[in-house]
């Protein structure tokens, strides 16, 4: 079964609004990462938050992590049409000695101009 589940599956907002996406996971993690995928392109790494961190910022992105609830959220502030993309969370499990990211199902974000 998948490690991550994302919510909502699709989100449509107006330019300038904030967008919040949520991710839940099942096992203990070393870190959690968020990626963006534009249509027809590869995934781009946005931000990594470690299991001992609760919040992280990068430009207009804010990520929170609640390990007790096994959940994370990605907030994009002041959204732009160029933010339209699929967003994926991915978890690096604690127990594995090898690198492995397990991806969620993704949230399709549409920002309308």
């Amino acid at each position, binding site marked *: 079964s998948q490690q991550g589940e994302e919510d909502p599956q699709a989100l449509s907002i107006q330019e300038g609004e904030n967008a919040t996406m949520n991710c839940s996971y099942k096992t203990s993690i070393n870190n959690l990462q968020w990626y963006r995928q534009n249509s027809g392109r590869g995934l781009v790494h946005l931000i990594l938050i470690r299991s001992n961190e609760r919040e992280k910022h990068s430009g207009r992105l804010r990520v929170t992590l609640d390990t007790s609830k096994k959940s994370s959220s990605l907030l994009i502030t002041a959204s732009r049409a160029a933010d339209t993309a699929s967003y994926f969370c991915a978890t690096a499990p604690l127990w594995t000695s090898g690198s492995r990211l397990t991806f969620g*199902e993704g949230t399709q974000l549409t920002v309308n101009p």
Partner: protein
Amino acid sequence: DTAVSQTPKYLVTQMGNDKSIKCEQNLGHDTMYWYKQDSKKFLKIMFSYNNKELIINETVPNRFSPKSPDKAHLNLHINSLELGDSAVYFCASSQRLEGYTFGSGTRLTVV
């Protein structure tokens, strides 16, 4: 200066054929991966190599064979292609558990 490059970008082939996808990274990363993304955008890991050594081999038909001649290259060879193999295949690299750098993907269509 493409960090992770994979070729070809598009691949259309008939059932039963054998094809290869090549991947190269110039980031000096120790670990490389192959992921498969299906039509619903679900990404599933197929293989992972660390310094040319296979460390992850998920439940993938043995028609799929990865080869890593050196730590900067990880190629994927697929024998006897089937319709269900149609997907987008992504190569990626990383240094330990840090963020991945993905290639732009190879869209494989089996007809």
